[in-house]
């Protein structure tokens, strides 16, 4: 941070020069009345709105120190670190602290009896924008200023042009200066100067989105659209471009949604495909193996929090083997204790697995409680990034898709390239012949059941960032998993994959047209009709009984 203060000084100098160059007609700005500003922040919604709006108005010409100070006060208000005592406001280090400094004078004072105002939505938007403006104008770090600009962009209509110009003049980072120029340009849609207006239209169409489309369509009502051919041509071209981009973005979103839903379905069903395919056991406890995987993930998180807090963010990766082994262990125990006695009685094994499922749900409820588990979401699974037009890639879904892809590859490798896989395939195709050839089918059963349960445990890891984790979470997956397995064809992983993609895609395509309820019904009806024609599913494995 050696050069920090120096750069800040330089930025201040540039601001000063810029303010001289940009507003030569204006006299030196009146300094911000800090006491009155702080008091207004403590006032009612109307007072807050008035003072913050007026701050946005003067921010382009106020002293840097005043802007920075106002930024601190606004941030504190957003974080509820502003305590109001009568007419004065205190800045606290953290919400609810016992002592703070007077916002206007900087004197330390006790905060007892202070009231932290709750922002209304309208005021929150305004305060966020003003705080973003202060950050953009005065923050020493480029990254901070970039987030400040992103905040301003959300409500660009409320931002005075002069403020963007001042920021652009003061900006030292070339990349950020470019984005500032683009933002300033697109903010000039209602400018009086026709040339700047055309530039603004083009700039808006550079960043296409549904909102950009609405902003541009609104211009069709402008008188210039009827009279000025250049304006009309530019606007039409820009609109066509935005329309195209938005439809491409929407198409990408449908693909992504379908893929993401399919990845969840696939992971929930992969283990079931093996268990059902190999042993013909209708395992109703499969959802609970997913739940055990998720609880194992929680256990890993808590262990890391205690033992190695520095590694906490990697708990989702550390949990992969743990969740697999935990679910596989429970699966093998259940197979050894209960299911192996029931192999020739499919209905009894169905009931037994249902009992196991009830037992596991209630066991976890008694042991841990039925509330949703508290996960810290590392940055790689929270939020998202807008990729193109309105298409946002959310990290948690991407994590699940990648996870499903890796699971798929590993499953295929194990089934096709390892001795265990060879045994599993042999037993699936012809149990008696495999036994005659010396394969210990009981042992294969047990390992395959463990493997299938372990896969469900992996699904639990991938679902943690997407769904709520509680004892009943598994019940949501069991019906969908069976649909996938039965449609795909019993015992084939590729069939499971194709069925998951098909069901996921169909759901996502039908949902916007007929709603989520109808989507479920239509997909289910479709599956039933398909199975009428082809009872063995999409990819039937040839087998001898």
């Amino acid at each position, binding site marked *: 941070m050696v050069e920090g203060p120096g750069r800040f000084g330089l930025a201040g100098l540039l601001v000063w020069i810029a303010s001289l160059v940009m507003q030569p007609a204006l006299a030196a700005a009146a300094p911000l009345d800090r006491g009155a500003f702080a008091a207004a922040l403590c006032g009612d919604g109307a007072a807050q709105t008035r003072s913050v709006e007026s701050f946005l108005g003067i921010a382009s010409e106020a002293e840097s120190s005043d802007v920075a100070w106002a930024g601190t006060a606004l941030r504190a208000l957003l974080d509820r670190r502003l305590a109001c005592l009568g007419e004065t406001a205190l800045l606290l280090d953290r919400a609810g602290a016992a002592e703070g400094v007077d916002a206007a004078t900087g004197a330390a004072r006790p905060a007892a009896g202070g009231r932290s105002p709750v922002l209304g939505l309208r005021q929150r938007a305004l305060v966020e924008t003003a705080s973003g403006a202060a950050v953009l104008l005065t923050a020493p770090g480029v990254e901070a200023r970039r987030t400040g600009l992103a905040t301003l962009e959300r409500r660009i209509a409320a931002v005075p042009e002069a403020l963007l110009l001042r920021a652009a003049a003061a900006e030292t980072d070339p990349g950020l200066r470019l984005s500032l120029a683009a933002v300033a340009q697109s903010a000039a849609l209602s400018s009086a100067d026709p040339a700047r207006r055309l530039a603004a239209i083009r700039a808006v169409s550079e960043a296409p989105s549904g909102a950009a489309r609405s902003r541009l369509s609104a211009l069709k009502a402008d008188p210039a659209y009827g009279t000025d051919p250049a304006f009309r041509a530019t606007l039409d071209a820009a609109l066509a471009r935005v329309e195209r981009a938005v439809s491409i973005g929407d198409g990408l979103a449908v693909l992504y949604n379908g893929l993401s839903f399919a990845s969840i379905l696939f992971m929930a069903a992969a283990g079931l495909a093996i268990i059902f395919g190999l042993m013909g056991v209708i395992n109703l406890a499969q959802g609970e193996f997913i739940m055990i995987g998720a609880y194992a993930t929680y256990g890993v998180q808590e262990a890391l929090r205690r033992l190695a807090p520095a590694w906490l963010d990697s708990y989702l990766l550390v949990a992969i083997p743990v969740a697999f082994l935990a679910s596989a262990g429970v699966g093998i125990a259940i197979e050894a204790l209960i299911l192996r006695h029931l192999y020739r009685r499919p209905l009894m094994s169905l009931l037994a697995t249902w009992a196991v499922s009830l037992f596991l749900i209630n066991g976890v409820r008694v042991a841990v409680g039925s509330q949703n588990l508290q996960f810290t979401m590392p940055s790689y699974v929270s939020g998202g990034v807008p990729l193109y037009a309105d298409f946002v890639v959310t990290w*948690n879904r991407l994590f699940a898709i990648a996870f499903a892809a890796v699971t798929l590859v590993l499953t295929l490798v194990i089934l096709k390239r390892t001795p265990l896989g060879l045994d599993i395939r042999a037993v699936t195709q012809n149990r008696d012949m495999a036994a005659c050839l010396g394969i210990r089918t009981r042992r294969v059963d047990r390992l395959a059941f463990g493997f299938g349960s372990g896969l469900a445990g992996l699904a639990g890891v991938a679902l943690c960032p997407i769904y709520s984790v509680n004892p009943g979470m598994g019940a949501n997956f069991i019906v969908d998993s069976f649909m996938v397995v039965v449609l795909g064809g019993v015992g084939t992983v590729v069939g499971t994959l194709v069925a998951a993609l098909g069901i996921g895609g169909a759901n996502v395509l039908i949902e916007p047209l007929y709603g989520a309820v109808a989507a479920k019904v239509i997909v289910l009806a479709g599956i039933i009709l398909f199975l009428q024609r082809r009872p063995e599913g999409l990819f039937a494995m040839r087998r001898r009984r």
Partner: protein
Amino acid sequence: MVGFTRRGFLGTTAALAAPALIRPAWAADTVKLGCLFSSSGTMANLEGRLNHVVRMAADGINAKGGVNGRRIEVVTSDPASDWPLYAQIGRQMLQQEKVAALFGCWTSVSRKSVLPVVEQNDGLLFYPLHFEGDENSKNIVYANSPPASSVLPAVDYLMGAEGVGAKRFFMIGSDYVWPRTINKQLKAYWTSKGVPETAWREEYVPLGFSNFQTLVNQIRSFAAQPGGQPIVVLTVVGSSIPDFLREFANQGIRATDVPILGLDMVEADLEGLDTAPLVGHLNCWAYLQAAKAEANTRFLSEWAAYVKAKGVPFSADTVIDPMVSAYDSVQLWALAAAKAGSFDVPEVRKAFPGLSFADPSGYTLTMGSENNYVARGVFIGSVNEKQGFDILWQSPDAPKPVPFSPYG
């Protein structure tokens, strides 16, 4: 298929599904109260808390000598989030356990299934949730607010200058009676305010739905259309709420862009969520944990102590409106029974008019002579970083409840 018959199958199924439906509490010179709250299934995380609150309230009353010289015994059950089972267990409680009153139900569909049972047996059901109104049974005490004193004030707030000046509305709900009725009333309300039909959209999802990606995409494109500030009116219930909120935040929508008014959203739904990107979303209830009242401080510490003492498997420092409403219900019943000097339902019912009780919300609850509704205060809450709600607005007093909506 050795010895496997359909009858055997049904028998086993029933035995598995109903492991001792009711846990009875036997004692002489006691009066029994029955609970109909699920501790399994999709509502478990929410309803499960209410069993414990009813017990806590009964313990408190017993410590002061009980009612009419008798101790209260609480009979709990598990209807397993299975709506017809509420009616079945309710009937058993009234006919076999002879409970003096029932406390129960969260979803309106479960209340509707218990309604004929309490009417046939002339029982009393205290219902602790705010709901769609349009119902007035002499056998049900509606301990929470109908839409006119919960949903409409909140929608008014959002449409007004103090809120965001909402012009367009995306309604998304679980597919059952409460969301559909609320949305029907809201649409009629907006029509009466001159809002055109093009300004709203209505979507429903199955109960327990969790994959909200496509719907949140639709909300984003709805929000991008011109026509004024959009809001989301969220009436999904149970585990769908946190799943929806997570997807909403991940796709980058903030409360300052499109606020959500979560009508069934309580503090417990925010457990396990990172609420920093959700700050500012709204809910409306007759009680919020942040309510400033001495009775609230007392209630919160009583609950924390109870959780600790009894090893209750729920958070000691989360209290939600239905918990307080269930607590209030027990108090109201005890007040009425004491006033009537009897536990007979007709006598107790006659004692309702004129009852009042200063509850943890800081308002004084009152019951009138016209119906079995309870007048409650109105709070609008705003999500904060700490998985709770700050009070954004609250009504000056407890408005008189209006059971039947003039809208829809």
